[in-house]
């Protein structure tokens, strides 16, 4: 008993002694002691030495109020020599913060004068990090949950290595310089300016909104993206949009590392509010209803005034607005959007104009932004595209497939062409014999000849002769389908819907739809039901008006009653739907797609 008591009491004594000792030996205290010792060795007068003798380590705290919410900073507890010019060659953290003429520091009368005084600017307004931290890991923001690790310096443990490797360097701090230095041509924020240029040049502005910069609506608002996201996310998302968000529809742009870096820095500088802005200015900016004119529009407009004809102007616009960072035109391939090389043979001016004004008026699930450009520009670009009518050179069916079809349907015919992931509905998988071999040849030919409305399949009727279409189809059959057309037993199908369109019928159809169809086609009938993600081909978007209007009642009846072979659509006769039930459903689907005209 006594032994145990003695042992425990000694353990307590040693433990509390260790705690007290530890409190006097924190890293920052040791750095300060080292600094005092070195400063004493360099001291020139006795008085200076005496004043250093009485100094003991203290937490050096400043409160910076000039930059948004007040920042509590204890950085100088370790970086105690940051403003002591004698430590220019010292070892971090006991080292002088470099002086830089580029940052406005002035050398006069034998000493440097800082422009950004630490007492006024603090440290985190430029470097980020966690000002309150008293250990390196805390202060530099190494913890993966700290939102602002030191820019260009600290890499958090959960950052992917291949991404983190690109995120080093003082350049990244330009994002913070730009919080106050907003002038576009400011020398210290060259990369922010470059990133901004890329934001327009690569077409980012078409989808993304940044308050006062752009007004896109397809992608997320990036006004405060620099506050919400860290460097690794910004970089990683540009490299592969689906790495962090598997359902992202953002195109994967082909950018050089330098361009990615500039873009990341530009995005990181988007923090919404800015310390150089008064609350009144901020309010005025937030409530402003003026749609900003993209920089590039103004630039392009001034550059092309020389062009006389509408067509010439349109050609310059298409290059100026960077359409080809997504689309293909002749040899230039953006790798994301459809080929415009033969556009004049595929579409008519009305289609092009509608599509320019709002791409989703023609292709419901298009990922092309509705660029808010002047109407005249649309007309000129349409005029130019309508001149793209050059006839194809004589080609074998294999070459035809290669040059016209493979970009979407894939070289293996499996519907996984280079730009297939950006198309909705996805290109047909031509190797799925169950689908291909059960469709009448006339329908397949019609799809090639007239295109498929509401999808990215264009009508090739003017580009290819009938013989060429038959040839391509034979080629597809031999290469990919590899099966004889199957004979389908004659099906009893009405040519037009026998159930008259009426409010009652639509209501009955909706009830059945909600019970039977929403699992795959979704409650909004947009093809995004809960099961849809596991199904290829994806369930049809039944609100795609252009498509639904192009399909006959007979085909709708056939698809519902007998299912669609080679897809997940089952035969609903087997599940007890009667002809009149199907008629109600067809009426319901038609009612969703009545054109507003």
């Amino acid at each position, binding site marked *: 008993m006594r032994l145990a008591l003695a042992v425990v009491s000694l353990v307590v*004594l040693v433990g*509390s002694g260790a705690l007290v000792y530890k409190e006097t030996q924190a890293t920052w205290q040791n750095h300060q002691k080292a600094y005092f010792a070195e400063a004493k060795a360099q001291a020139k007068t006795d008085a200076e030495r005496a004043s250093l003798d009485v100094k003991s380590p203290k937490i050096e705290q400043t409160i910076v109020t000039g930059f948004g919410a007040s920042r509590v900073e204890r950085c100088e507890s370790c970086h105690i020599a940051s403003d002591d010019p004698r430590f220019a060659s010292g070892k971090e953290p006991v080292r002088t913060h470099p002086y830089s003429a580029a940052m406005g520091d002035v050398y006069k009368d034998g000493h440097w004068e800082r422009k950004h005084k630490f007492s006024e600017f603090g440290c985190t307004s430029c470097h980020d990090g966690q000002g309150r931290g008293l250990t390196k890991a805390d202060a530099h923001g190494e913890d993966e949950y700290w939102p602002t690790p030191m820019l260009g310096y600290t890499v958090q443990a959960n950052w992917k290595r291949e991404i983190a490797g690109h995120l080093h360097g003082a350049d990244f701090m330009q994002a913070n310089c730009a919080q106050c230095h907003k002038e576009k041509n400011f020398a210290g924020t060259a990369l922010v300016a470059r990133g901004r240029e890329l934001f327009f040049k690569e077409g980012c502005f078409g989808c993304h909104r940044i308050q006062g910069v752009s007004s896109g609506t397809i992608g997320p608002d990036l006004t405060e993206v620099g506050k919400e996201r860290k460097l690794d996310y910004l970089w990683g998302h540009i490299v592969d949009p689906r790495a962090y968000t598997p359902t992202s529809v953002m195109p994967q742009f082909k950018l050089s590392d330098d361009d990615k870096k500039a873009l990341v820095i530009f995005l990181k500088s988007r923090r919404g509010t800015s310390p150089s802005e008064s609350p009144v200015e901020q309010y005025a900016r937030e409530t402003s209803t003026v749609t900003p004119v993209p920089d590039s529009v103004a630039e392009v407009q001034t550059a092309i005034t020389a062009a006389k004809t509408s067509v010439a102007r349109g050609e310059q616009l298409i290059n100026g607005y960077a359409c080809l960072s997504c689309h293909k035109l002749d040899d230039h391939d953006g790798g994301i959007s459809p080929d415009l090389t033969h556009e004049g043979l595929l579409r008519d001016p009305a289609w092009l104009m509608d599509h320019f004004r709002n791409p989703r008026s023609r292709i419901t699930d298009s990922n092309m932004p509705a660029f808010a450009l002047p109407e005249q520009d649309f007309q000129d670009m349409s005029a130019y595209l309508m001149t793209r009518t050059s006839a194809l050179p004589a080609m074998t069916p294999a070459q035809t497939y290669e040059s016209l079809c493979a970009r979407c349907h894939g070289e293996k015919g499996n519907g996984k062409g280079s730009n297939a992931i950006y198309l909705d509905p996805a290109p047909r998988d031509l190797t799925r014999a169950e689908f291909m071999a059960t469709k009448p040849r006339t329908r397949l030919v019609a799809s090639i000849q007239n295109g498929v409305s509401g999808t990215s399949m264009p009508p090739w009727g003017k580009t290819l002769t009938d013989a060429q279409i038959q040839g391509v189809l034979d080629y597809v059959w031999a290469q990919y389908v590899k099966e004889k057309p199957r004979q389908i037993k004659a099906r009893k199908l009405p040519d037009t819907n026998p159930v008259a369109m009426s409010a009652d019928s639509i209501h009955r159809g909706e009830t059945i739809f909600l019970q039977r169809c929403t699992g795959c086609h979704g409650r909004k009938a947009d093809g995004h039901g809960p099961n849809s993600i596991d199904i290829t081909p994806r369930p049809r978007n039944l609100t795609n008006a252009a498509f639904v209007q192009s399909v006959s009642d007979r085909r709708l009846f056939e698809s519902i009653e007998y299912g669609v072979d080679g897809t997940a659509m089952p035969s609903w006769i087997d599940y007890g739907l009667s002809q009149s039930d199907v008629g109600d459903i067809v009426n319901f689907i038609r009612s969703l797609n009545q054109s507003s005209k």
Partner: protein
Amino acid sequence: MAVAATETKSTEPEIGRRRFLGWLSGVGIAGSAVLGSLATFFFIRPRTTYGQPNRFKIGRPEEFPPGSRIAIDPKRVCIVREGNKVAAISTTCTHLGCIVSPSATGFQCPCHGSRFDVDGNVTGGPAPKALAWYAVSLTPSGELEVDKDSEIQTGTYLSV
């Protein structure tokens, strides 16, 4: 079990051992208590608080020409320079804490009319005490630093 065994035997050396253990426990407990209370007194004073820091830089001596008396209101301190001597005098009135302002005769308080001479000594009004003088030092970067935590004797200047 070992403890029970020692208690049953009561020979001479065992008592010595008991004493020793008791003494050891005493040292341990008393030591922890003393250390604990000392540590409490030592650590009870916060190392930092969330107010504006009491030690701050105010700029280079050249910014204060000889003979000037420049009040820095946000920091509540007046920098006095005479020749090449510099001092920092508090501008917080010792009566009710208003900010006093430099005047031709020294300082005067706008609230209740306290008056002080150029060294901060009371010359009139309700103020009970002279204005405090704070330690001023020159940092290695050549800037003046005022430490409001350390009050010094009236009339103590720093030569620059």
